[in-house]
């Protein structure tokens, strides 16, 4: 009985954890090309979810709404890159941390005023009826999260390996200066990475909204955990974020069960601080050699 509850908790937690992994993957995309991440990524998740909700309410079918939402996310990602990141990167400063927080704050306020402060349900054609697999109940909705996460991560990884543009992306990640010398524009590649990262954030919003509802604050808790996942896994391991995301999801699901729902956030945060202290490059990250 008890084991079954634990199993159930762990599985649904781990499926939720895949959303953290997906957002964390968005951090990795931009970190690879520019060594920067968008501190307002949670607001991108939220505002794209709202936009997708509007598309749905306007009568767009699910299959048309999803690409629309992804496109919107990509556009917003480009806004963040242009307004918040590029100048700081040119100046080789860390101003992007503050600027991306600021742009996120602006998105937050805009969403509050355009769509309201209340949480709203997100209609979806995917059913929420549980299916019984190996002794635990899983809803189709939860499974759709897993499918969506693996699909987009697979597509992006294929894109990076199989297309010329993707190889340019990898080249800039490996060595920005050398790539520039080979005629690859690093500015455009950074733009591309922010666009992709925005799409990934939008998909995370679309996948998670039917489960959690849509609201201005929907991503504030989500984003902290995505940060934890990205840092604990390391900012350069796509495989790592999936593992750590599922682990963290399961862990916090159990923590909220045993300690009370208020402590839900605690394991992720403690894990993050510990990981930063013990392995600053992440469990799956590569250690860097300091050069002078």
């Amino acid at each position, binding site marked *: 009985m008890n084991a079954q509850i634990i199993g159930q908790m762990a599985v649904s937690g781990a499926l939720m954890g895949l959303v953290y992994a997906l957002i964390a993957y968005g951090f990795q995309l931009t970190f690879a090309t520019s060594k920067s991440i968008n501190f307002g990524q949670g607001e991108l998740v939220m505002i794209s979810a709202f936009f997708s909700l509007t598309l749905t309410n306007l009568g767009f079918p699910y299959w048309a709404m999803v690409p629309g939402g992804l496109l919107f996310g990509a556009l917003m990602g480009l806004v963040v890159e242009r307004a918040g990141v590029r100048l700081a990167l040119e100046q080789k400063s860390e*101003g992007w941390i*503050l600027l991306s927080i600021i742009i996120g704050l602006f998105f937050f306020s805009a969403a509050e005023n355009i769509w309201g402060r209340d949480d709203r349900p997100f209609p979806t054609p995917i059913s929420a009826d549980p299916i019984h697999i190996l002794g635990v109940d899983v809803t189709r909705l939860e499974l759709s999260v897993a499918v969506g996460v693996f699909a987009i991560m697979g597509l992006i990884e294929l894109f990076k390996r199989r297309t010329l543009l993707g190889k340019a992306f990898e080249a800039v990640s490996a060595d920005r200066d050398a790539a520039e010398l080979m005629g690859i524009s690093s500015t455009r590649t950074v733009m591309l990475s922010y666009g992709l990262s925005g799409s990934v954030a939008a998909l995370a919003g679309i996948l998670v909204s039917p489960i959690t509802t849509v609201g201005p604050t929907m991503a504030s808790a989500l984003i902290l955990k995505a940060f934890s996942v990205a840092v604990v896994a390391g900012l350069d391991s796509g495989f790592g974020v999936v593992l750590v995301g599922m682990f963290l999801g399961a862990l916090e699901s159990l923590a909220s069960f045993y300690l009370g729902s208020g402590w839900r956030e605690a394991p992720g945060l403690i894990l993050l601080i510990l990981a930063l202290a013990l392995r600053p490059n992440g469990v799956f990250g590569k250690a860097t050699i300091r050069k002078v």
Partner: protein
Amino acid sequence: MKRILLLRGAELVVFAFLATIPLLVVNPYALGLLTLLAIYGILLIGLDVTVGYLGQVNLAHVAFLGLGAYAAGLVVTKLGLGMVPALLAATLVGLVLGGLLALPALRLEGPQFALATLSFAALSTTALNELEALTGGAQGLSLSRPPLFGHALTPPLFYWLCMVLLAVVWMLMRNLLASQWGRAFEALRDSPIATDAMGVGTYKHKVAAFALGSSLGGLAGGLYAFNFQYLQPQSFTYDLMIILLLGVVLGGRKSLWGAFVGATVIVLLPNLLSNRLLFQIFSGLGFAGALAAGVQGLVKKTTRPFQALAPVVAMGLLVVGGLFVENTEDWRKAIFALMLFSVVVGLPEGIMGFLALFLAKLFRVPHAPLPEPADLDTMLPIRPADGSALLVLADLKRYFGGVKAVDGLSMTVRAGTIHGLIGPNGSGKSTVVNVISGLYTPTAGTMQLRGATLPIGSLYSVAQAGVARTFQNLQLFGELTALENVLVALKGVYRNPLPMVLLGLARREERTAQAQALALLELIGLREQALVKAKDLTYGAQRFLEIARALARKPDLLILDEPAAGLAHPDVLQQIEFIQRIHQRGITIILIEHHMDVVSELCDTVTVLDGGRIIAEGTPDEVKRHPKVVEAYLGQPPQPELPGGAEPLPA
């Protein structure tokens, strides 16, 4: 003297004015705002230590405000103690928790540091919410303001208490930040590696700065608790943190006045947002200012187009939005965002940074005169060059994975000599230097300095042991002046303990230090440029300054890592002369160099490396003729028996 009078005079006038206000005005609302101004002033001075001096985005400061507030509140409500213990507890909570957070966050830079502090803030909100038995959770905690030394604190009295504390904090911090401590904080921001290599200790200073800033956050929290007499966890969230950052950045980083201006802005913001006319006036002014600055920047080509235009667009949005939006209060976050964006992009030095330039032109305040340079012979006595073994390396190895960068190196450096270390690119020279100076831990082998084992794997400990180094890729503290760069590294002058420094009783040793630093600058011909920021010096001067800074360690062994790299020919000659001057003082030097003429001119002994191993050792002339050296540099000599003979050498 005139400068000091002006600066102190301005402080005195402002504080005297603020102190007399309750005597003149009886409006309780205005008094409330002024009390808040004092509290936020303390809070922002604390935040400025990490954001301004350490240059890190700190998102945990609001948590220390909250924790300090709850600590004070609990001391009063649960323990029944008075005002003084409560405020002490609040400060102590900030100090201890700040230090604890700094320990793991210590190794982190930039984004990781921001994330660690963000997590800490979220964690502390969770804790305040969930520890209901203690904090009352979301219900909040009510408390009453205890008397101070038997006097009930009426609003004017409480205001004076806050002002007095602000003035005390102001004075202590002014003394601290102008001292060796403040310089070390800034050095840490510009180059942590060089800070360690100059024996300053990033560890100690980062923790100290963070704990100190957090303790001020805690103190402000204590006052906050007694000001509002009601606490709720949701008062101390991310939103407030953004406003605090706005205050520091808008006011101007690295400036007590900046924190004060920032606090004023924060206190006035709610009024600004609730009064439509006021809002329109201010957004209009902001727009005009951004436009003027933008146009000027574009015409003079001092700013990039984006830097000039983005603030104009943001402030324009603010003006246009102000006309259409019904209730500005609803859009407060967007308004903060637009303001903060404009400031970060368009006015990175903040209001005080801008004003400081302006005022400096207006008043033409000369810098306080510098002392006469100290006598070089007393501060850096000439050491006997007895030729004894100073540094002995035995079978030193350093592997990176499969790459054997240094592979079994044994070498003796004799006291008073200049020992050259040369070799083709990738031969392991820099790795040897990095192992000796403690940046890398050796894979195997031993190192001895004057017969004692040299510490391994710690730049700081090696520097303390008497080895100083320069860097091939310059690692100067760019935002500090040439003089300050040398002062940071100066050894053996700063002895006064922290309390003396805080109380401003360490002025005499500061003068001594300046005199010594000037003597070193004179040695390398930079005395006239003592007050120029390092980043504004010419490339050659920066290379010279690196040497002066390393000399400030008064080292037994000085390691010069390609001191002539990238220098124009006249500068190379100059550099040779400086190195000879240093050599005449009996300081032992290891010289890594590519310029063969520099090596021949200066070195007593030369060790040649290739592939991580020694291939030759001897006087410059001996090694130049050594066949292995010729081969390493020029490739295989042409085989005489080949028909046709004269094939060109491979490049």
